[in-house]
């Protein structure tokens, strides 16, 4: 039978009619629409067992407690730990997206030597050679860690020097250190017991110290009240967030902190408002007024307001000997509500010395902010988890990122009590990543290991019988059976808190009113975020809204 074209057409019509009575068109319609929902570029959600673990954030020296939700072994959400003695259940705005940082496009994943890929063994060889040829300086922005002890052990054995890099809050404590002999790392601020805080431009409500500490205190005792229990007087030239929310805001000319402190001191001494002894500032009151832009009467009235509710504590934004002298005058040194020594005065574990000669090589730990410039011609070995761009490191060494390595967390720089916590790694470090401490151990295997040092510190705490371990509930150390139990608790996210400092164990003696140096001041909120990059969703804060200014020199 010959099949004609007409047959084909009729046949096709039959097929078409038949197809309608089959599942084909209907199923295809549905399935194709589902297919369009599953294109390969559509992000897939993680599937896997979900668990919640506790650790401490190590991005800056404050070590806030973090509760991390993990799915399929990867962190998928970060929150604070409520009741945490150091961070009070809060985190800085960017930590909530910190778990995404480990996949930031600028994450460093390979060793680079002057822009070209290199290997760890090349870097080790170069560093070992440099140690043999001259002095090595190691810069560390989170001193007092176990890793810091590794650095100390290394420079002692190999003739080097250890240089801590201090943030502005610690720099503000430097004058007290030099006047009392107590090292800076042992000092802190006892904010909880003060009634009036006079802030010389310190961004107390926006990136100062541990994020949760002062904001919670202020929220509980001051927010919105016309006569608050905690008075915050903000004195600065710009209109920062802290100034916008403070109880009183005093607008002064930029750079006039020293003059203002001197003027306040004069009025305190002249009107006999303080009992403490201190030298009279050299600057006359009228001159101080002129420099600050306030009138003499305004300064007098400000001082009277300041001392209405005592104790009073002055906080500087950075190293300011005049403000420190003012605190001595106000009796806010070594007393409750003032500058305190959070640890018993022990010689600093790692003596910081200025190098005797120009170093041959410089090792910069990953904790040091990217903007830090060692100002040297030496060969620079820079550890970092993220590449901030620019910079003049000869060697860029990929360091562990967020919660990727075991480390310990000493007391935050501004804390008024001694604390200790352990930050366990919740995700394994990628294979090509090493911390500075591990690097030094590879070069000299006699260097102590971080977990041995952590164990030793737990032993110290155990034998001191001081303080309490805050886990599910506070447990005094004297009731804990062994150092191992302490370490176990700390590895689960607990924090050891030492006893409050004894008044009188910190004394500053001043002969003359100090001369002032002006230093650049960090006022930008992002300056408190030490990581050179921002989590990508940080754009919500400055690009997709008008809430904040774009941070200088950092990109999401």
């Amino acid at each position, binding site marked *: 039978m010959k099949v004609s074209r007409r047959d084909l057409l009729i046949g096709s019509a039959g097929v078409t009619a038949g197809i309608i009575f089959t599942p084909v068109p209907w199923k295809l319609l549905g399935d194709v629409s589902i297919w369009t929902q599953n294109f390969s570029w*559509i*992000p*897939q*959600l*993680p*599937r*896997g067992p979900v668990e919640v673990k506790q650790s401490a954030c190590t991005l800056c020296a404050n070590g806030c407690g973090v509760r991390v*939700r993990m*799915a*399929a072994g*990867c*962190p*998928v*959400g970060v*929150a*604070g730990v409520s009741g945490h003695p150091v961070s009070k259940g*809060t*985190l*800085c*705005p*960017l930590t*909530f*997206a910190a*778990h*995404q940082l*480990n*996949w*930031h*496009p600028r994450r460093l994943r390979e060793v680079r030597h002057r822009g070209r890929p290199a290997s760890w063994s090349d870097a080790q060889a170069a560093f070992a050679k440099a140690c043999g040829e001259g002095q090595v300086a190691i810069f560390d922005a989170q001193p007092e860690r176990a890793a810091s002890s590794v650095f100390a052990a290394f420079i002692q054995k190999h003739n080097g020097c250890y240089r801590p890099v201090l943030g502005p809050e610690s720099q503000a404590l430097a004058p007290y250190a030099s006047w009392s002999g107590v090292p800076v790392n042992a000092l802190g601020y006892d904010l909880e017991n003060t009634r009036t805080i006079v802030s010389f431009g310190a961004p107390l*409500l*926006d990136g100062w110290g541990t*994020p*949760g500490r002062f*904001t*919670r205190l*202020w*929220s509980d005792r001051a*927010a*919105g*009240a*016309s006569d608050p229990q905690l008075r915050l007087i903000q004195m600065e030239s710009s209109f920062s*967030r802290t100034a*916008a*929310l403070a109880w*009183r*805001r*005093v607008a002064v000319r930029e750079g006039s902190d020293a003059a203002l402190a001197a003027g306040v001191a004069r009025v305190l001494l002249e009107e006999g408002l303080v009992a403490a002894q201190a030298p009279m500032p050299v600057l006359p009151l009228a001159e101080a007024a002129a420099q600050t832009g306030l009138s003499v009467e305004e300064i007098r009235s400000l001082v009277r307001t300041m001392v209405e509710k005592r104790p009073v504590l002055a906080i500087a934004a950075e190293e300011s000997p005049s403000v420190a002298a003012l605190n001595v005058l106000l009796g806010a040194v070594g007393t409750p509500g003032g500058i305190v020594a959070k640890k018993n005065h022990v010689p600093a574990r790692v003596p910081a010395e200025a190098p005797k000669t120009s170093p041959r090589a410089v090792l910069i730990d990953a904790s040091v902010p990217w903007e830090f410039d060692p100002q040297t011609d030496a060969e620079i070995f820079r550890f970092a988890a993220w590449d901030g761009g620019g910079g003049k490191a000869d060697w860029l060494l990929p360091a562990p990122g967020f919660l990727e390595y075991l480390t310990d967390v000493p007391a935050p720089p501004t804390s008024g009590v001694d604390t200790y916590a352990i930050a366990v790694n919740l995700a394994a470090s990628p294979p090509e990543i090493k911390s500075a401490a591990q690097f030094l151990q590879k070069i000299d295997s006699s260097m102590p290991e971080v977990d041995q040092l952590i164990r030793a510190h737990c032993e110290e705490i155990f034998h001191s019988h001081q303080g309490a371990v805050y886990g599910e509930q506070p447990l005094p150390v004297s009731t804990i059976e062994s150092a191992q139990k302490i370490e176990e608790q700390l590895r689960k996210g607990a924090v050891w808190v030492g006893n409050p400092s004894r008044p009188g164990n910190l004394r500053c003696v001043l002969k003359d009113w100090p001369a002032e140096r002006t230093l650049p001041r960090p006022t930008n909120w992002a300056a408190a975020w030490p990581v050179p990059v921002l989590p*990508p*969703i*940080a*754009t*919500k*804060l400055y*690009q*997709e*809204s*008008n*809430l*904040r200014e774009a941070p200088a020199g950092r990109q*999401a």
Partner: protein
Amino acid sequence: MSARYGMVIDLDRCTGCGACMVACAAENNVPPAPPSATPRTGLTPMLVHKVSNGLEGSAQREVFIPVTCMQCERETPCVGVCPQQAVEVDKATGIVMQIPQRCLGCRYCMTACPYHARYFNWWDPKWPEGMEKTLNPGVSTRMRGVVEKCNLCHARLHGAMEKAAAAGKKEIDPTDYVPACVEACPTGAIVFGNLADRNDPASRAADSPDAFRLLARLGTEPKIHYKSRQAWVRALAERGTSRSSEAKHV
């Protein structure tokens, strides 16, 4: 036994840090914005506005106002206009539920919402390579061309419901259902709870004389309340919100 979940935000305590905004974006798998995004095209289910009192010098003060979906109860504007019925008010919880997968992107709801609390996905979500491993498994991602908004962290409500069911309970434990913004706030400015329960802290805070709601005159009965002891802040209640790039005062 139905609940009415809402919040009371204490504007005296908000420091404008933005932690709530970041925590919200992380919890809800909100994608990072491309370089061309602006405050008008941004995707911020929680958005904090900065408002000044207009005075100068030492008298100048600012207030920070976090704005999310107000969970309107009465004649919910976005529900009425949606051609796809992609949004409805849940009878059991009072939450205004937006299903982005049903949305066809007409943006009528964005026009209808008096609080400008709805956001459009102008771009396909794209995370840097590998970052999808950090997405919250409890919230599905959206595609470009759909509207989304705050769902009061429904993933966390799911978690609380599952936990209660596993323990054999009918009602969830209130401490298990805490939205991301509430958890993140460093000053505890946001109080979240069941406004239908007279003993709930949120319910009691909403009854305070210092409490107010934004644009209450429109009669949508929002369940997000605000409170402030400062009279000038309470006076802002009847002003509208704006998301333009130049907004400084509202």
